[in-house]
């Protein structure tokens, strides 16, 4: 049996819920945390009974994994170390919110094997941080970054957001410059998406906020230009890294690898099976303890769906897609090549700058 190489763990708690965010999360409730952590460990045990787990990458996402206290983190990470074969592990990422970073936590994480931190900065501009309803200040974010460095993290990603309401080009450029000056190994720069069931979406629907695709495109292009110029390789639509510092966990998703997800709302894909746990801490916990399945949704990813996904998501990365996968769509590929959306080096197809801007429209042809 081929071992499973990628593990995701969802920690669905945040100090405060941001008005734009649609990830599954709850307000932090420290009292019942132990039970939840035990459920995670129990789920891990059950899953390792079913298949061979030998991860190369682990990703603790959320929510805000760093919202857990140092002792809770210690309990969870130790528990995981005890139950997992980590001999193949090369990347262990944990997402942090700047308001939840402390030196003790950072040292602890480092000591327990976490070697990559992804921190949500979003902006260095106080006014925009308040538009985004963030719990931290810019100064706090900068201090947290320094703490992480001091604690020995040499692989750090900072999340940024552009096209935020009221944001000017100058504000965005300043945020980019400040980030570049700090020199993280990796920068994720996301265009704000109005996700359904968020306060931002409501404001967008009511006309309070507006979206201007041209403006989004301008900011997006400015981002690509600037980060490219200072040596960050835009290896995926929103992700930029120093050479060799890509997020291998995310690359695995985009390249169609199998992965196991633990925790409420987490997705897993193994071969033709894909499933998602219920997005509800209570239900998740009680089902796990009752020995029941925590799965809330299942779907079969047949060969053609799998191929469609590999193409659609592979195209988003600068590795692109092997030309031979695109055989059935020869005429579309030719059209996109001649219209300047695609380039190729003989073996692989890649998006051009022009193509990146409309990657979704292009991907439609292959699903």
């Amino acid at each position, binding site marked *: 049996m081929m071992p499973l190489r990628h593990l*995701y763990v969802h920690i669905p708690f945040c100090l405060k819920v941001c008005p734009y965010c649609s990830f599954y999360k709850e307000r932090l409730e420290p009292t019942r945390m132990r039970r939840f952590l035990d459920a995670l460990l129990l789920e891990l045990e059950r899953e390792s009974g079913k298949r061979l787990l030998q991860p190369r990458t682990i990703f603790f*996402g959320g929510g805000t994994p760093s919202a857990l206290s140092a002792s809770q983190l210690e309990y969870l990470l130790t528990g995981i170390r005890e139950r997992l074969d980590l001999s193949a592990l090369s990347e262990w990422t944990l997402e942090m919110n700047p308001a939840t970073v402390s030196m003790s936590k950072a040292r602890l994480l480092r000591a327990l094997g976490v070697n990559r931190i992804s921190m949500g900065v979003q902006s260095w501009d106080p006014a925009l941080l308040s538009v985004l309803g963030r719990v931290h200040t810019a100064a706090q974010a900068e201090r947290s970054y320094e703490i992480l460095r001091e604690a020995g993290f040499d692989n750090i990603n900072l999340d940024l957001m552009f096209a935020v309401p009221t944001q000017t080009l100058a504000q965005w450029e300043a945020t980019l410059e400040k980030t570049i000056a700090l020199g993280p190994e990796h920068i994720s720069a*996301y*265009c*704000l*998406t109005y996700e359904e069931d968020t306060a931002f979406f409501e404001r967008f629907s009511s006309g309070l906020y507006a979206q201007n*695709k*041209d403006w*989004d*495109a301008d900011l*997006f292009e400015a981002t690509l230009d600037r980060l490219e110029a200072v040596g960050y390789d835009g290896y995926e*639509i*929103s992700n930029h890294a120093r050479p060799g510092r890509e997020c291998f966990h*995310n690359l695995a*998703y*985009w390249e169609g690898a199998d*992965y196991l*997800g633990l925790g409420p*709302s*987490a*997705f897993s*894909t193994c071969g033709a099976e*894909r499933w*998602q746990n219920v997005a509800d801490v209570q239900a998740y916990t009680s089902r796990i303890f009752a020995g029941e399945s925590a799965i809330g949704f299942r*779907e079969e990813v047949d060969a053609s*769906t799998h191929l*469609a*996904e590999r193409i*659609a*998501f592979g195209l*988003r990365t600068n590795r692109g897609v092997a030309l031979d996968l695109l055989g059935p769509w020869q005429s579309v590929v030719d059209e996109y090549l001649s*219209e300047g*959306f695609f380039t190729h080096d003989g073996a692989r197809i890649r998006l051009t700058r022009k193509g*990146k*801007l*409309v*990657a*979704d*429209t*292009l*991907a*439609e*042809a292959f*699903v």
Partner: protein
Amino acid sequence: MSIQQTRNFCIIAHIDHGKTTLSDRLLEVTNTISMRESTDQQLDSMDLERERGITIKSHPVAMEYTAKNGQHYTLNLMDTPGHVDFAYEVSRSLAACEGALLIIDAAQGVEAQTVANVHLAHKQGLTVIPVINKIDLPTADIESCKRQLEDILAIPGDEAICTSAKAGIGIVEILESIVERVPSPKVMADNRVRGLVFDSVFDTYRGVIGYIRMASGTIQPGLGVKLMSSNKNYEIKDVGVFTPKMETRPQLNAGDVGYFIANIKTTAEIKIGDTLTEQRHPSDEPLPGFQEIHPMVFSGIYPINTADFEHLKAAMAKLQINDASFVYQAESSIALGFGFRCGFLGLLHMEIIQERLRREYNMDIISTYPSVIYEVLKTNGELLTVDNPAFLPDFSVIEEIREPIVKATIMVPNENIGDIMGLVLEKRGVVDHTESLDTRRVMISCELPLNEILVDFNDKIKSMTRGYGSMDYEPAGYRADKLVKLDMLVNGEPVDAFSSIVHRDKAEGRGRQLASKLKEVIPTQLYVVAIQAAIGGKIVARETVSASRKDVTAKCYGGDISRKRKLLEKQKEGKKRMKSIGKVNIPQEAFIAVLKSSAGG
């Protein structure tokens, strides 16, 4: 019952003056229908009629009435459609009567179709009984109505009966005056069988049911008859009267109004205005006034979902069985796929058919902009009729294009005359004369191209006059004019559904309007979309839909993959339902928006 005891009358009025409501009261007072079983608008039996409050078909009904003189009478009532689209059907209903109740809305006074209907009634030699209805309204002005009767229609005002159909006032007076004033049916002396067919319906179980007024002779089951326009023979299976349900009678005699059923297969065989006669002793001449009716307005009807073509075809066939004035023929459009070219009596008729297709047959349809029939004289002397701009021959072989003209009468308050004259001019009309009706209103007689008044003319009159203006029109032949074909091109390819025939002077403006409307409704796509309006190959307007600059999801983590893929699939599915012209996808909604917008005309 003797013929002296029969009265045949119809109700005529401008649209909405209360014909149907008044008929209901007459049915109740004569106990033809008891109050309890009465649903409002008793005679409007089609759902659509009841809902829109517009009478579409003629509805005959026989009422029994004992008058104050103690005598017993059969009163045959005909409710007729008030809309100009159905003017011919109205004229045939009138021909089946000796008298007409002329309803005038006390708050509105005499309106354009009031005048037109009175002319029709006089032409048929009918006795006209004026009725001023809706006197319960606070805005009712009985005196002014009486003056208008005299001034405009030369009918003595004091002959008018004042009623409220709603409140049930004056109903008995109407019945009495029908008995007194309407003559009993005149009968031709030779006793040959002559029956005027004034309408027909199709019943799934009984086949075609002809509505008939016997002018002379008697028909009964077993009689061999023929329809004179087609010379086709049939055998009578059943005859009877409407009470208002169909009720079998042994026979129908001269003067009677009722129905007959023979072995007639489709309503297309039985033409409104035709004469039914006996095979063995036929009448020498048909009854006067028969005309073939021809559709005046054409439009393409297409299924939104191309797979529904066969359903649509079946639905159209069913509709036509009941309504022979609706014609259709398969056609195909590059933009819309397979559908039908349909002909209608007028715009209301068109809307009704479209609505019935949607509602009764659950069809999702799209219809192209309505067109009239053009006569095209080619340079080689050949004369074509063209009801679809797409089939206009090349301009190099066209000598001239002639368009249908109507004679219109428009009645408006004095203060609106300037606006209305402006509107007429804008619609390329020529005012013939204007005439004061009384101190408040004028009547404008003018000629207008039918094409120009197809869509919003009546609405415009209504809104310019706050509802007080009205109009009526009749066909007045064809006239040549500087007409051109306007094509809309998308990335250089003509989209046939958007082609139209327009006057040279208006073509550019309309081209610009259409182009900007299209720009609004065509979504941004991967490529730049050029929209052009062209007259005979010359581009007169252009717009550009710039290519979409950004369409890319920002964040795509592991869990998002299913959701994202499904979004892509959905988007793609959506595009499948669009029509593609070259590389450009035009959503169905875009077609609808353009075809609906008044810019489409």
